[in-house]
């Protein structure tokens, strides 16, 4: 039944009530999704050339996070490939033992973000790990030396991988309140997140600064 046919069979009084309610804004209905570009400059105090930086937006009062499709990390020639992956919180990684020889692998992590041990994966087998919490998860194989990898879990699908400090752009960010942050591994540095409000139009000229940690002795 079309909307027009439904409209025709409604009693005239009811039709009038609908028009009145619509004028009052009773039916909010699905809003037109607004998406903006967030851009700016990522700086590091002292000009330090930090590498593998992930600039991301964390929802404060905005759209919920959305998991990505499963990502496959292979174990071949005693190496995890890719060695570093970025996933959205709630995503899954499929670890696939793709060795040609009969070699077993294990994947475990002692990271503060997430501890796990998936046991032994035989040749040709796949095992899945969920990554529900944002943070950096460094993992190892307990069978083989120097076999390690990292998962950078970001809180939303709105992120940009930046090879070195400089300009960044994140597209299609929905309206709402966000915190702009950056993930990196160097322990001598920290960052203060920046509040970002998406309402109308792009948000540009943001500055996100990574600084050396202040000395604190316990």
């Amino acid at each position, binding site marked *: 039944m079309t909307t027009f046919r439904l409209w025709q069979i409604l009693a005239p009084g009811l039709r009038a009530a609908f028009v009145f309610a619509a004028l009052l804004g009773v039916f909010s209905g699905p809003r037109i999704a607004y998406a903006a570009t967030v851009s700016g400059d990522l700086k590091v105090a002292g000009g330090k050339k930090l590498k593998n930086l992930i600039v991301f937006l964390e929802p404060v009062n905005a759209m919920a996070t959305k998991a990505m499709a499963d990502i496959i990390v292979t174990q071949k020639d*005693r190496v995890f490939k890719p060695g570093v992956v970025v996933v959205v919180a709630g995503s899954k990684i499929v670890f696939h033992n793709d060795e040609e020889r*009969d*070699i*077993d692998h*294990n994947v*475990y*992590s*002692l990271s*503060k973000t997430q*501890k*796990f*041990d998936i*046991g*032994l994966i035989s040749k040709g087998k796949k095992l899945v790990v969920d990554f529900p919490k944002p943070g950096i998860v460094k993992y*190892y194989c*307990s*069978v*083989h*030396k120097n076999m390690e990898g990292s998962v950078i879990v970001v809180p939303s699908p709105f992120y940009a991988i930046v090879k070195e400090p400089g300009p960044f752009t994140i597209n299609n960010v929905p309206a709402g309140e966000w915190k702009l942050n950056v993930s990196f*591994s*160097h*322990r*001598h540095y*920290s960052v203060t997140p920046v509040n970002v409000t998406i309402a109308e139009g792009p948000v540009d000229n943001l500055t996100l600064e990574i600084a050396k*940690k*202040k*000395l*604190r*002795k*316990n």
Partner: protein
Amino acid sequence: MTRNLLGFLVVLLLMNWGAASSQALADSHIFDPDQPPADGMGTVYGKLQIRPHKDYVKKAKEKAKNAGPGAVDQYGTPLRDDGKLSFSEKMVNYNLIKVFTILLNPAAKLDAEEYEVVVEEDGMKPGALAVNKGDVIEIENDSGKDLTFFLADTNSNDIQEFPLIKSGDSAKIKVELVGDLELTADEDERFTASVLSRQGLQSRKARSGNLYSFRNLAPGQYDLLFWYWRLGYLKKTIIIEAGKNLEINGTLSVDTVVK
């Protein structure tokens, strides 16, 4: 001539035996559990083992059992006479790993100890240290470049900085942070060592399967940690009683640490 040669061989044999037995002494902590501790004091001792994942051990042993004479594990490596697993060059060799046993007594007044870390082109040696707050680490920089080190707590933003060490120089640093720390070169993160630092920390380092002991301790409650940097640690709270030798054994593995 023959007698001389025989004598030479005997001397050679004795020298080798001496070297082997000193190595065994160095690897094994001599302790007699039947010997009582000093008056009013107690002792904790035990055997610490580090092993591969339990699923790996189970599979290796099943494979070897089914293979019959000339048993091999799942990689075709013959099983050792002592029943331990063998590990190829590319595998983590659990037979060689030395593990820390750590006793924590925050009230203890311990003298500062010194440790040495050598920075070479391919990394830092040793890659892990267990220290008491106030201990000193001497860093020898043989990396070929000038480096500035810092200590960072992996669970907080606490940090301790040290002056630059020029290539070829060495410097002593005093550990003032407490926590699960990393000693890292600011210029190159490949130069990193794990440093477990606590107030009142005493440690023993031994190969898997050997005994450790902490003798003549005042009665009371202590924390005992079994630690290997790549596997983290197992913590046990113990009560030391006067006149008693307390046996605490531990197994450090992925499956005993991650539960």
